[in-house]
């Protein structure tokens, strides 16, 4: 299944991209998607604990299952205001 994965702020700098298309096997979780991308972008791994996850513009957890066509986002700690 096809996923769109978004990186924001410092995470986009680390990966050098703000968006990747990913082909994932069925029944994977957001945590598994992160692991796949951390293998491709090893500099992501140290940020694992501080990263927040979103699925289709809603906060999600590493256990959240993903579905075909989902937009997954990795968010560093927010700093608006």
């Amino acid at each position, binding site marked *: 299944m096809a996923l769109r994965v978004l990186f924001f702020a*410092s995470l986009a700098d680390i990966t050098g991209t703000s968006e990747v298309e990913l082909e994932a096997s069925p029944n994977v979780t957001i945590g598994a998607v992160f692991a796949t991308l951390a293998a491709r972008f090893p500099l992501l791994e140290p940020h694992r604990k*501080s990263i927040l996850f979103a699925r289709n513009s*809603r*906060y999600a957890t590493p256990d959240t299952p993903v579905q075909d066509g989902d937009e997954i*986002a990795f968010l*560093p700690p*927010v*700093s*608006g*205001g």
Partner: protein
Amino acid sequence: MVQLVRERIDAKGLRERIARPEDGAVVLFEGTVRNHSGGRTVKHLEYHAYESMALQQLEEVREEALRTHAIRDIGIIHRLGTVHPGECSMAIVAVASHRAAAFEACRFAVDRIKSAVPIWKKEFYENGAVWVEGDTMGL
């Protein structure tokens, strides 16, 4: 009313849109860009957002403020893109019959925005730039 804008925030315009004669208290909060941070001179900030999610989250903050505080309405505008010291990066107007709820709702909204809405700022100095990472406790 919640908004993300790329131009100067019209805080007075927000106040005029939100406040009505039945309100006994109008609290306007403006977050402004400081010209210093951690001992360094800040030239400007750049705000980036996950816009679709940030708008949803701002709306949730608004709804939660309305649910948990005795206010009649609350409006929030956050700026994106380049913002210079002294300029407003965020404006919040809370209106209520009485002042305590309006003050409290404003503080509540600022705190929630800073911890839950996917917006990030990058500080630009004379030499270099750094992404600011906030406190996500409570999520």
